[in-house]
């Protein structure tokens, strides 16, 4: 979905709700478990074999893989940050039906033929029961699905410099809300589409009032 960080999906002064805190807690727990297992495997392989040898290489690689998973679990998403794209948004707390002015500053030439978009996006996070089938049976866990409740993208000029955009928050769209089983989070986003790999993005959270 393009989020660049955890509860930084909220603008300053807005606190995460129960659902956001629960999601962050889950990621932290996963990160600790992967990290601990990864360190154990690496340390055990080095202790037993005295270094990276033919026998220990697989175990060390497994441990490093778990450490990478631990690092990834700490992030809210796998989005890359677009350092060459900067956004200014006004107002950062619009009402539904209100116009939002956006300025995009491209600080480095994205390259010929690059695709750069600017968008106004609302992510909906809603809880559901996930059924997982394992060798020992079925387990049901509470999970959160993230979908776009609203997404309006417009192309930007792929050149260095400043550009102006304007969006109108739809009157019948969800307002910003941090709940227990549903949340709606808005952002202005700039992204550069890449053919292979993750699109680098720059997000500015906004709080849409009813």
């Amino acid at each position, binding site marked *: 979905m393009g989020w660049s960080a955890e509860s930084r999906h909220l603008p300053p002064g807005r606190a995460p709700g129960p659902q956001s805190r629960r999601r962050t807690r889950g990621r932290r727990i996963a990160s600790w478990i992967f990290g601990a297992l990864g360190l154990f495997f690496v340390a055990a392989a080095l202790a037993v074999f005295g270094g990276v040898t033919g026998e220990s290489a697989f175990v060390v690689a497994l441990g490093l893989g778990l450490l990478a998973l631990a690092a990834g679990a700490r992030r809210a998403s796998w989005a890359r940050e677009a350092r060459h794209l900067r956004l200014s948004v006004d107002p950062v707390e619009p009402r539904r039906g209100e116009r939002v002015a956006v300025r995009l500053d491209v600080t480095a030439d994205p390259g010929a033929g690059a695709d750069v978009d600017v968008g106004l996006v609302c992510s*909906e996070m809603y809880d559901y029961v996930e059924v997982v089938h394992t060798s020992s049976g079925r387990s049901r866990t509470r999970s959160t699905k993230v979908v776009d409740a609203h997404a309006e993208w417009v192309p930007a000029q792929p050149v260095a410099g400043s550009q102006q955009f304007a969006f109108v928050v739809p009157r019948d769209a969800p307002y910003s809300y941090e709940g227990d089983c549903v949340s709606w989070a808005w952002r202005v986003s700039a992204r550069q589409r890449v053919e292979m790999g993750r699109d680098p993005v720059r997000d500015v959270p906004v709080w849409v009032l009813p």
Partner: protein
Amino acid sequence: MSPRLILELDRHEVAPGDEVTGTVVVAHGGRSRRLEVFLLLRERTAEFEHDALRIGSGPLAEGALEEGRSHRFSIRLPPDAPPQVATPNAEVYWEVDARSDQLGPDAHARQRIAVS
């Protein structure tokens, strides 16, 4: 027999800061600890529900509920009350819930209101 309640609202569309008023009619009397009306801000997905906000009227009656008796109530909607929202996956809405607290399952009478 468990009490049965009927909830009658004076208005189904209100604005933030308005008084939500109505009457709870005891259609069928019975044992009860307490009768109270609540104004609820509710969240709902296909598999989960949650009361994000709950404002009570205070007890309207205590003890056994008399059949045919009417109880008036008034609850102020918060001035920053958000309006209802619905998407294909979830919704947030306001509901008035008249509840008889009793031994066993409580009796309820519920109606949604629209907040502008």
